[in-house]
Every structure is written in structure tokens, then in C-alpha cells.
């Protein structure tokens, strides 16, 4: 059956017209106006006001942040200039710092210093053992293995162990001990053992027959700084 709009219009006219008396009521008109106002404000608030306000606040925050960053940068530049001047002032003594805390283990120079110290303090160096250290190149400790991330800060400071045994009279051993403490190369004593040795074995090593001889065994830690 073909669609006849005239009959269909007559059929549904009462529904079309039913809205008109509804909107003629003041209460309904007020409700409709309020409802559409709220919906319109919500819609435009979300799609228009929010992006605009966000842009405004973002730009204001960016200006404040950039101003603060600029001030901090200027402060840091001033601090760097001061640090550069201070660095140039202390540049002549920087080798002493490297001697104190070298960038590599430098176990051999430390052993040589201990030998010279023993000689200067009048003791007899009977043994000197150095633990496994990388003589050249990078540290072979687990932290230097591939995949291990170096931790900044105090973790850059590494240490290796040494064992030193010296013989001599008490005064000489004390001098040796104090020498280690006052040595420029930083080494700490982790343990010390002093035992008396038999006079006849000591007499073969020294001309001082009447002196009581002691043996000092030290365990040391030598430090170095990994860049």
C-alpha cells in the first residue's frame, strides 16, 4: 500500500499539536528554559571554557616556572664562576689529592711507600701481601661487570686489602704505625696483631741484642676513587 501523507498527517496531527498547549504553560516553559540552560552551560563549559582556561593557567604557570628557572640558572652561573676561581686557586695542590685518593688502585706505589716507611721507621718488613686488584684498566669488582649500573656518590670510592708484617722494637713499630696514619695515601687499619718474637730470631735481623722485639701484623685497606 503506497504511503499517503495526507491520511498519515491527519492520523498523527493530534500528537504534533499536543506539544503546543504544553509549551504554552508558563511552568513548562520555565522548566524547559532552565533545563536547556544547564545543558548548554555544561556543554560549552566542557568544550569551550575548559580548554581556554587550561591554556591560560598553563601559560601563567609556564611564565612563573621559567622566571624561577631563569633565576636559578643565574645563581648557578655565579656559583660556577666562583667555583672556577676557587678551582684555579687550589690547582697547584690538586696532585696531592690524586696522591691521597688516586683514580686507579695504584697498589704498587702504596707498597713502595709502606716499604719506605718501614725503612724510615727502623722496622724490618717481612711480608707484604696485596689482594687482587686491577693494576691497569677498570675495576674487576662485581659492580664493574656488564649490566651493573654504577651508583653515584660514595659508591665511587673503592678499596682493596693489604697485609703487612713488620718486625722491630716497640718504638719502631709505633713509628711505623703512626706513619701509616699520617701517610698521604689514605689507608685504614682494619686489624692489628702484635706478638712477641723469640730473641734469637730477632737477633739475626738486628744488631740490638738487648732489645725486646715484636712482630706487627696489619691488615690495611687502600682506597681509590673510580671516576
Amino acid at each position, binding site marked *: 500500500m503506497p504511503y499517503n501523507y495526507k491520511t498519515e498527517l491527519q492520523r498523527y496531527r493530534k500528537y504534533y499539536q499536543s506539544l503546543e498547549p504544553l509549551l504554552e504553560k508558563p*511552568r*513548562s516553559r520555565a*522548566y*524547559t528554559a*532552565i*533545563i*536547556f540552560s*544547564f*545543558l548548554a*552551560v*555544561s556543554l560549552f*563549559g*566542557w568544550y569551550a*571554557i*575548559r580548554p581556554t*582556561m*587550561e591554556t591560560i*593557567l*598553563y601559560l601563567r*604557570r*609556564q611564565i612563573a*616556572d*621559567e622566571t624561577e*628557572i631563569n633565576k*636559578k*640558572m643565574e*645563581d*648557578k652561573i655565579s*656559583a*660556577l664562576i*666562583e*667555583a672556577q676561581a*676557587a*678551582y684555579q686557586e*687550589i690547582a697547584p*695542590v690538586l696532585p*696531592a*689529592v690524586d*696522591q*691521597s685518593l688516586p683514580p686507579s688502585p695504584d697498589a704498587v706505589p702504596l707498597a713502595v*711507600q*709502606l716499604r*719506605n*716507611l718501614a725503612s*724510615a721507621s727502623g722496622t724490618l718488613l717481612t711480608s707484604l701481601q696485596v689482594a687482587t686488584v686491577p693494576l691497569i684498566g677498570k675495576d674487576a669488582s662485581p659492580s664493574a661487570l656488564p649490566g651493573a649500573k654504577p651508583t653515584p656518590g660514595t659508591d665511587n670510592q673503592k678499596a682493596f686489602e693489604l697485609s703487612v708484617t713488620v718486625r722491630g722494637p716497640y718504638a719502631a713499630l709505633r713509628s711505623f704505625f703512626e*706513619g701509616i696514619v*699520617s*701517610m*698521604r*695515601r689514605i689507608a685504614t687499619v682494619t686489624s692489628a696483631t702484635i706478638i712477641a718474637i723469640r730473641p734469637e730470631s730477632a737477633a739475626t735481623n738486628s744488631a740490638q741484642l738487648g732489645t725486646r722485639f715484636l712482630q706487627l701484623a696489619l691488615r690495611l685497606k687502600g682506597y681509590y676513587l673510580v671516576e
Partner: protein
Amino acid sequence: MDNDRDLLLISVFTFLTVSLWITFELLKTIKTTTVSSPVQQIVIPLDPKIDIETLTTVVNRKVY
């Protein structure tokens, strides 16, 4: 009449929800810094003072 009231309540709650949402979005924008992490690391303050006393102590120690 009830139908009108329901629609009004829905529109009011929609308005309130959108208003709160916009407020929180704007607060987040205000609180979030615009400075990138590398720049924050660059501007960490630097103390230019060098411990001269420690350096003197190191220099005065003996080398054998």
C-alpha cells in the same frame, strides 16, 4: 510535571559533574610543573666553596 522535574534534576547533576570535572582539571593544570626533568637536574644549586682545611691537611701529610 514529574517528567519535567526529572529532566531538571538530570541537567542540574550534569552541570555539577561537569563543573567539578573542569575544576579538578584546572587544579591539575595549576599544580603540574612545566619544567622538564633534565632542566630540573641542571638547576640543582651548586656550592662553590672548597674545603681548604681538608686540602691543607692532605697536603701536610707525608709521602714516603
